[in-house]
């Protein structure tokens, strides 16, 4: 599998969340995803970007265009050095919410993307990688 395009941007504020959405849309379009798939990708990106800012204290997101044989995909990796998630199982449960609402963020993003991977260490941070294949 090859990474044919790679870019990392900061996600530290509401304004940057907006920018991440725009980037996600552009990348999805350039990879040839249809409108519905674009919407799914951008919505997942919005959820995860918000989480990174609100719960992770800000972080980064990496955009990667992937080539795996004949199929092409878009991978987004969100990373922060925030408090981390103590109970992943609970956080991934549909509709789980803490305070103002981690809500459907993680489980929602998982449902919208083809692949979902999460690593989190309490006190160190969280990394969420989602991929959508065309």
């Amino acid at each position: 599998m090859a990474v044919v395009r790679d870019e990392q941007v900061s996600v530290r504020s509401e304004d940057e969340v907006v920018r991440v959405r725009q980037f996600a849309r552009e990348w999805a379009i350039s990879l040839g995803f249809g409108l519905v798939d674009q919407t799914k990708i951008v919505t997942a990106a919005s959820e995860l970007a918000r989480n990174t800012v609100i719960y992770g204290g800000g972080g980064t997101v990496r955009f990667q265009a992937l080539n795996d044989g004949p199929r092409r995909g878009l991978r987004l990796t969100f990373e922060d050095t925030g408090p981390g998630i103590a109970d992943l199982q609970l956080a991934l449960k549909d509709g789980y919410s803490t305070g103002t609402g981690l809500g459907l963020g993680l489980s929602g993003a998982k449902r919208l993307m083809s692949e979902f991977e999460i690593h989190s260490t309490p006190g160190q941070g969280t990394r969420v990688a989602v991929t959508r294949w065309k």
Partner: protein
Amino acid sequence: MERIPILKMGRYLLVTIQVDMHDRLAMALQDDLMEQIRRHHAEGVLIDISALDLVDSFIGRMLGNIAAMARILDADTVVTGMRPAVAITLVELGLSLTGVRTALNVERGMELLDTAREERETGDGRRQG
């Protein structure tokens, strides 16, 4: 900070969401709406989202909150103009906008508000026509 304009349309209020919503803007909108409902004794709220190309759980929660708060102030809420791609994604997301009525456009939304009010009035008989 910009605030989302609220238009008075007869007995109803109309809000058109066109920009990327963030926390502060959403809170301001909710505050403004409740204030306007109270001031104009509005009977319904129309939230037009035809300009939104995505609705995530944050926006979904905001819409649900507005509907719930408006209800307490005796006003119905209808969300109009949801785009197909957004609807499909919301279904996939598993986000159910419970307590939020929807209509294809503002005109239909107003008709829906008319019928909703009628049903409630004949239903609980609190208001004699």
